[in-house]
């Protein structure tokens, strides 16, 4: 495992350019010199079942049509389309494949007629958590997920991704209790172990099916923390630490053979790009239709795809919400790509403005500052195992935040400062070894909170 980072210097850490670009779909290359919009959309309020199925198909067809029309209208040269299924479409892969086909066929037609470079990323659900506690390596849900991974390429997917959830059954409670130790265990032990298992399966199926194994996200962990912090429920400094704590876990996908782009909602993406060199998808201000965030601008600083996360097909004054997102993404990408076309120095200037404009306001933004990413990433890659990296992530992030708060490059209110002071000792107290943590957590969690065997424990 390489200890050095794939991105060697801050000067080379830019939006639109990744050390290892990804080629996919109809003429699309990601990370090769321009930022590509990634458009996502989902159903409005509707029950997905056999009775509503015709309407569901119509909705997806209509969303894809309007989005492609707008992209062509605005001369968007390249586009990544994400289809994130809803659970009934993973439970029943044939449903997921039917929608995949509807979207893929329209992408192909748009490519042939208008020359737009376009690829379809398909993201089935991690339905394993329908069992409580989750069955991660067996059972009906896992079998159907495998069927989905195997059949997606034939159905028309160019890339496959997932928002995997191993460890979430422990993390949810840990988050609302701001319990650092349990979060470290959930991500650095459980999450990392499940990622290894899951992604080896995904990568082998993708290779067999000619599909790009793209990436994963700590959405169910770190974005949950971000949303809770946004609502004033948990401290932002804690949410910022959770973000970096998720890095070693998400990195496992790329060690297992995923090649990017990372999932849009994986705000740990800049760390993936710095460490593994994969192109990353990010979402910011143009994703506020899906969720608010303190990362509206800084998320764009080193992105390779720029996404709206997801928007339901509701009507706005101008048109349907997915079209609106498409237009916003198109303009945002015009700006980054104009700066890139200007000069490397120009792109760095824009990158730094995007970063500086957010970083001082929120610790969750601060830990995404490109220079901070390189500093922390370098530190955690000094260790070799996911747990050791996770422990380093917690400690290093804490000290970086403390220093930033002290020198005023990060502004914190008194409630946040109080919590920052509490979290240092908690990080220091993390045990040296994974097994030590495992033993102590086992005794403090209620019986049946999670199934150790599902993690090979």
């Amino acid at each position, binding site marked *: 495992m390489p200890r050095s980072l794939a991105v060697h210097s801050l000067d080379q850490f830019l939006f639109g350019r990744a050390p290892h670009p990804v080629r996919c779909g109809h003429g699309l290359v990601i990370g090769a010199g321009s930022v590509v919009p990634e458009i996502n959309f*989902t*159903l*409005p*309020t*509707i*029950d*997905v079942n056999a009775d509503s199925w015709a309407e569901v198909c119509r909705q997806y067809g209509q969303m894809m049509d309007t989005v492609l029309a707008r992209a062509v209208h605005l001369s968007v040269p390249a586009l990544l389309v994400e289809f994130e299924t*809803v*659970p*009934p479409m993973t439970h029943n892969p044939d449903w997921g494949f039917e929608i995949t086909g509807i979207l893929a066929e329209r992408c192909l037609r748009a490519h042939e007629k208008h020359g737009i470079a376009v690829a379809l990323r398909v993201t089935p659900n991690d339905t394993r*958590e*329908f069992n*409580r506690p989750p069955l991660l390596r067996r059972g009906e849900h896992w079998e159907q997920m495998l069927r989905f991974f195997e059949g997606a390429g034939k159905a028309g997917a160019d890339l496959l991704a997932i928002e995997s959830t191993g460890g979430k059954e422990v993390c*949810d*409670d840990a*988050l*609302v*209790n*701001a*319990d650092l130790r349990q979060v470290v265990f959930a991500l650095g032990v459980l999450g990392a172990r499940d990622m290894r298992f899951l992604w080896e399966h995904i990568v082998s199926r993708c290779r067999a099916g000619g599909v790009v194994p793209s990436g994963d996200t700590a959405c169910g962990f770190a974005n*949950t923390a971000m949303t*809770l912090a946004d*609502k*004033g*429920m*948990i*401290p932002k400094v804690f949410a910022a630490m959770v973000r970096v704590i998720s890095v070693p876990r998400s990195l496992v996908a790329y060690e297992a053979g995923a090649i990017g782009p990372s999932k849009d909602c994986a705000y740990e993406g800049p760390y993936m790009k710095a460490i593994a060199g994969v192109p990353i998808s990010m979402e910011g201000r143009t994703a506020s239709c899906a969720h608010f965030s303190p990362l509206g601008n800084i998320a764009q600083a080193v992105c390779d795809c720029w996404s709206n996360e997801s928007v*339901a097909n509701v009507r706005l004054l101008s048109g349907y919400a997915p079209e609106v997102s498409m237009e916003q993404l198109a303009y945002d990408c015009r700006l980054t790509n104009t700066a890139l076309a200007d000069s490397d120095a120009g792109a760095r200037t824009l990158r730094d403005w995007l970063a500086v404009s957010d970083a001082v306001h929120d610790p969750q933004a601060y830990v995404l500052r490109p220079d901070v990413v390189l500093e922390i990433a370098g530190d955690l890659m000094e260790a070799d195992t996911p747990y050791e990296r996770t422990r380093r992530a917690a400690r290093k992030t804490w000290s970086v935040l403390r220093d930033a708060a002290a020198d005023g490059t990060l502004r914190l209110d008194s*409630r946040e400062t109080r*919590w920052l002071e509490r979290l240092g000792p908690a990080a220091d107290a993390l045990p040296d070894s994974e097994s030590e943590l495992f033993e102590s957590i086992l005794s403090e969690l209620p019986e049946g909170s999670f199934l150790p065997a599902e993690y090979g424990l």
Partner: protein
Amino acid sequence: MNQNIPEKWKSLYDAVLEGNAAAATAAVDAAIEANESPQTLVDEYMIPAMDDVGEKFEQNEYFVPELLISARAMKAALTKIQPLLTASGSQPKGRVALGTVKGDLHDIGKNLVAAMLEGGGFEVIDLGVDVDPDKFIDTARASKVDIIAMSALLTTTMPSMKTTIEALKAAGVRDGLKIMIGGAPITQEFADEIGADAYGDNASTAVSIARSLVAS
């Protein structure tokens, strides 16, 4: 903040406010020993303490973890008191059955609401996630439930709320209880449309909503 907590068992109030479960149960023991009425302890010390915790949260002084510590202290004290209350014939504030609806796996909001309601003196039956309408019906039949609380976080599982309410009606148990709903995509308009009795846009308002539902 409640200004007029009687000095007598203020240590109980303080223990709940500070989330000190050991101190709270110790204070309960001492008060019972001194023949204080259990209902008085609940009404004049413990619930006011939880109300003040909620207030601190609303005023951006507390975060949820602090609020949960208080809720746990409250629960520990209540566990001591509950048998005495039952023996004296007094009732809990009300009984709430709650769950995330069919097809939806989101836990956190539902769990927070459960914790807040328990802290507010309600008895809570947590049905978990992905809850079938039948399970709501069975629970309503088996236990005397005052309120059913449902959560959904997906636009594609919101319709399950409507289905559940219709199933409760069809089973003939709808009239005897109140229904409150919540979750990110839910709105007051949606609650009205499907015939729910109340909508809460965050966990911390759940207690006051539940109180007004059982009062009405």
